[in-house]
């Protein structure tokens, strides 16, 4: 169960936050915020990164006792962070990758909308629906 999906632009403020369950959301926010450091570290470690799908996916950022955090960064340095419940061991790496890919695709669709200013919070219903369905699916 991905309990939380958060998306940050280059400047590291959240563009989109969605969590299930909705209580304790603050904890997820905090976790994700701290994971940003790890993300930045990985990005800088890549150096002249090959712009490659594989490189975009950052993998497991760090595990805590309750859950795992995965990261993904796009070409334009938009970061997606996903927090997943540790108890859900059935969730494989490929599935996480595909979820990130879906997020990335939906994000590009949003960017195509001329009324969306990059840097605004994301209010797109299509994006919401996609995230919801993704969360439910893995649930």
């Amino acid at each position, binding site marked *: 169960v991905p309990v939380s999906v958060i998306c940050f632009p280059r400047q590291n403020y959240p563009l989109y936050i969605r969590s299930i369950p909705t209580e304790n959301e603050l904890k997820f926010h905090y976790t994700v915020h701290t994971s940003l450091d790890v993300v930045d570290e990985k990005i800088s470690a890549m150096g002249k990164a090959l712009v490659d799908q594989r490189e975009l996916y950052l993998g497991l950022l760090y595990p805590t006792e309750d859950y795992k955090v995965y990261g993904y960064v796009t070409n334009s340095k938009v970061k997606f962070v996903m927090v997943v419940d540790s108890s859900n061991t059935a969730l494989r790496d490929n599935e996480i990758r595909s979820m990130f890919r879906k997020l990335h695709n939906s994000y590009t669709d949003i*960017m*195509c909308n001329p*009324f969306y200013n990059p840097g605004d919070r994301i209010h797109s219903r299509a994006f919401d629906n996609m995230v919801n369905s993704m969360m439910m699916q893995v649930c």
Partner: protein
Amino acid sequence: MEQGPAGGPGAATAAAGSGGLLLPLSESEQQRYSELFSRCCPPPEAAAAGGSSNSSSVGELFRASQLPPDTLHQITEVCGAKRVGYFGPAQFYIALKLIAAAQSGFPVRIESIKNELPLPRFMALKNDSEVRYGTPAELHGVKFQVPHATLEKKSYKRTDEGDKQEPKSPPMSPICSPPASPSTYQRIPLSYGYGKSRSGLEQQHGAPYEVRHTTHQQDGPSSGNYGAKPAVTCSTLNRSLSAEREQQDSSSHYSDDPWRITEEQRDYYINQFRSLQPDLNSFISGSSVAKNFFTKSKLPIPELSHIWELSDVDCDGALTLPEFCAAFHLVVARKNGYQLPEALPETLLPEYLQAASLKPIRDSALFESYSESLPGGQQARDFSRTEKASAEEVPDNSALIQDAKKDENQALKVNTALKTIPKEFQHLTVKTAAQESNALRARPRSRSYSSTSIEDAMKKGEEPPTPPPRPQKSHSRASSLDLNKIFQQNTQ
């Protein structure tokens, strides 16, 4: 002088006019005027100025009378409102009488209103009762309203919302294609339009056939009305949407679906598209053109964003013609108070719209290509006949949507391919296209046959142009010695 706050049955008080004018009002006039007055004048008790009308609602009402602005100014002057500065009941009643006079063709003068006059006609009336009042009197013009009272009322329902930049022209599109019969429901290019202008009745028979012809015929008059003032998209939007509004209370044989685009609306949208992008088969870029265009509608940005999201189905940041129509339609709907749907309604899907709209466009484009390449034009006639024949059949909506996507895409390709492929292939594509359209309408299930034949035809048509370039490896065993020599010569 002004009367007491009761805007109501102060009819007798109309006698005390601004110039001491005694204004005899008949029973029906009295009733009508007082009703109109109370409409224009919010709760009389609250009106501080003692029953005088709110000038903006009066203005709206006057504009709804369809008289030219000069006449309205004249009326305002003559009735004395200009002098006193507001519309008291007396002024208002005189003004109404003057409006009636002007509508009957009398000059705007005090003398005119001393005669017996029909009731003034206002196009924006929302109440049934007002229309009914119009009927009993001896009315030349209002006779139209009698049989079509409901129709006209509905079609003009929202015209008072829009601005009145074209007061002389009929508020609705000139393409009046009133439904000939319930069977029109089943045709995809539905003609929902009622007798929108008074002359609409005469066009009743001509119009359904007009619909199927090429769009140029429809372009002329409709662009005359709408294309002339692209800046006032909002006002004309309201007009075109009143066609939609009436769907809701229309009789059962029309769809009550506000998301269904009528013929007039489609023509209007197509014209707007054309004003932004002359090539109907191409698209409008989102970030500059479409954004500015839709921002003009003054909807809030999040809503526009949502509308875009709904209508840009392929998410490419550009709007093709069907996507544009859908987006425009949603804008129009939103401006008229409809909530935006969560998902794009079926009738606004590009496939659906393409199936409906591309037929006439395809006809015209194909006609052009035929005339230039095929001397006889025989096939053009055949094709047009099959097109028309197929259009008359009743398509199955759901099958159409499924079919339409694939087949219309191919039809588009056929369309463009026709211009490029050499003649020997044209015969093949023409026939297959005709077959395809027939198959589309008549046998949706067996479309797999027709579509494969089209693909074959297209492949044959598209292959000849350029063979793939040969790999130029000088040391490969596969290359011939001749080539190597040629290369060496070139490099030396």
